[in-house]
């Protein structure tokens, strides 16, 4: 398959053999990004200089006979809440509009060491708060399958760039579904690693007990390979797990024979969208044909996940975002005194959804409401976790849809924040339980929009997720299908 739909593996192998130069690959992808970005708005920054320098370094290393990394010469896009030394990192917020980090995030260091070529920083919902990318201070991202549809969020830019062939692979971050939901909407695969699997060092914090960096790609194998590169222990993140990284790529070839796949029957049957139900059922049927056993499981407390998540995540966000005060970095809007400088800066720097979440979180943590809201949510979180413990006694992975519907229209849910939150119902429970999860395409709706299937596994069972997702991709994925209306 040729440009721009080559896989990361094809690009790397050609660069390694010298069939193409990394610089030529970088130029081709940079040109495509420049051409299509006005239509898609998936990049906030396209880094020509940095990308060409990184590519030239790969070419030099090859000429010198050095061993090249697993992503040598592969163009990668990274979400703009990952700190990149010397390259603007905005979090799609006015408050960080001109911020240039003095350091690289752990995952950025890992990408550079692997030989990857970072072509740019992708658009997102401000501070990763949103499910449609409509909360960006710098414009809406389009869904490449239908330009008037939301790409999902908050990693909408990374999903769009990958689906549209602007890069083969990308990094996003996932707090309550922010790589999985846009992956489902844009017809690609994304992994939300177990909490602690990937270092959060240099990921701008939203909700620290939930945030994880996750790989996004047009195939399960490429997502698995990218996870292998970014996973691992980093002592600069105290919650980083010191555990071996298995070969997720090898796991893709292990098959599903004898695996037990848990089906949350009442969630599936409660779906109002027939296309989503049929696509997920087709995915399940394919797994069964390949030797997996389907077992019914239940997650009785999952229906509370929206309440629990939007109390805990906003409480943590209200605390994390207190650092944006106009003193040490970012925007400062001076006032009469220090207090007014704080309020002016924050009122002008934060957009409506970020302000709403800071308000909700501050309320949930405030005197008199802490027990009734925040603490209660943390107790119900335990019940949600226990649901999974029980389910995993009966099965190896739990399967649900990723989203209740395919991509909704841009503007459809912006007037009602609660309605936007409710659409996160399937991705929130595994996040609250800290589990590993993957979303991979399992078909399309009658109007041609991708549909995602979510698989959830016990902590550090990412390999198993790759095995099962690969079987879904082989049977009903979209890996060879691309959005058509772009060029």
């Amino acid at each position, binding site marked *: 398959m040729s440009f721009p739909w080559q896989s990361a593996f094809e690009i790397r192998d050609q660069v390694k053999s010298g069939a193409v130069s990394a610089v030529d690959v970088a130029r081709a992808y940079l040109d495509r990004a420049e051409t299509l970005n006005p239509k898609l708005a998936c990049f906030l920054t396209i880094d020509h200089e940095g990308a060409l320098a990184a590519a030239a370094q790969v070419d030099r290393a090859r000429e010198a006979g050095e061993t090249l990394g697993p992503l040598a010469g592969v163009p990668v896009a990274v979400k703009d809440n990952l700190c990149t030394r010397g390259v603007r990192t905005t979090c799609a917020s006015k408050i960080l509009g001109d911020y240039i980090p*003095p*350091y690289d995030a752990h995952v950025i260091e890992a990408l550079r060491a692997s030989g990857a070529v970072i072509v740019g920083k992708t658009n997102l919902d401000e501070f990763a708060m949103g499910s449609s990318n409509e909360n960006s201070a710098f414009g809406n991202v389009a869904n490449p399958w239908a330009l008037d549809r939301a790409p999902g969020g908050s990693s909408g830019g990374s999903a769009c760039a990958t689906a549209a062939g602007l890069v083969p692979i990308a990094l996003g971050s996932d707090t309550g579904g922010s790589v999985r939901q846009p992956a489902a909407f844009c017809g690609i695969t994304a992994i939300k690693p*177990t*909490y*602690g699997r990937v270092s959060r060092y240099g990921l701008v914090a939203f909700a620290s*007990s939930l945030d994880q960096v996750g790989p996004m790609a047009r195939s399960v194998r490429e997502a698995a390979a990218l996870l292998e590169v970014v996973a691992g222990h980093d*002592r600069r993140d*105290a*919650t980083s797990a010191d555990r071996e990284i298995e070969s997720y790529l090898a796991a893709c070839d292990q098959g599903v024979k004898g695996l037990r796949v848990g089906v949350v029957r009442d*969630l599936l049957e*409660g779906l*109002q969208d027939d296309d989503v139900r049929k696509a997920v059922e087709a995915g399940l049927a394919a797994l069964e044909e390949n030797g997996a056993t389907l077992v019914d499981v239940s997650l009785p407390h*999952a*229906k*509370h996940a929206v*309440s629990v998540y*939007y*109390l805990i995540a906003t409480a943590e966000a209200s605390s994390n975002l*207190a650092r944006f*005060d*106009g*003193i*040490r970095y970012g925007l*400062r809007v*001076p*006032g009469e*005194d*220090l207090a007014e400088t704080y*309020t*002016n800066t*924050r*009122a002008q720097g*934060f957009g409506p959804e970020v*302000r*709403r979440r*800071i*308000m*909700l979180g501050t*309320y949930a943590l*405030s005197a008199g409401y802490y027990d009734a*809201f925040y*603490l*209660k*949510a943390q*107790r119900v*979180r*335990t*019940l949600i*976790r226990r649901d999974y413990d029980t389910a995993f006694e009966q099965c190896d992975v739990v399967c649900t849809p990723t989203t*209740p519907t395919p991509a909704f229209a841009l503007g459809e849910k912006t*007037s*009602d*924040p*609660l*309605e936007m*939150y*409710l659409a996160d*119902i399937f991705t929130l429970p595994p996040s609250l339980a*800290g*589990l590993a999860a993957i979303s991979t395409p399992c078909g399309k709706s009658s109007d041609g929009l991708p549909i995602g299937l979510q698989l959830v596994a016990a902590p550090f069972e990412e390999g198993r997720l790759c095995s099962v997702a690969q079987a879904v991709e082989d049977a009903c994925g979209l890996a060879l299908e691309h959005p058509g209306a772009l060029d």
Partner: protein
Amino acid sequence: MRRPRLKGRICYLRRPMADAKITLEQVLHVAKLARLTLSDDEARQMQQQLDAILEYMAGLDELDVSGVPPTFHSIPMNAPLRPDVPTRCSDRAETLAQAPESEAGGFAVPLVLEVDS
């Protein structure tokens, strides 16, 4: 304000009470705590939106969680310690370059106290 559309079985069955979960006065108090300012219109809209969200969240009341421990961290882990040896930290000039205002190798901030000269 439009009531949220709740879908299928993923909604709460009980939708209790009619009185406001959060008042305009509380909204303004919370805004002060969070160092945010809201115009009159913004405050009214914020009150309506937070009220709808909190009303939905009242669905948690159907659960008895007495005796259930909270999950502050989903994955059990020990706080790791590192050897107490000095290492390089970030470059001062590079760090201060990002400050809105800096002076004499430090962050410059507005006056907090009046100083008699």
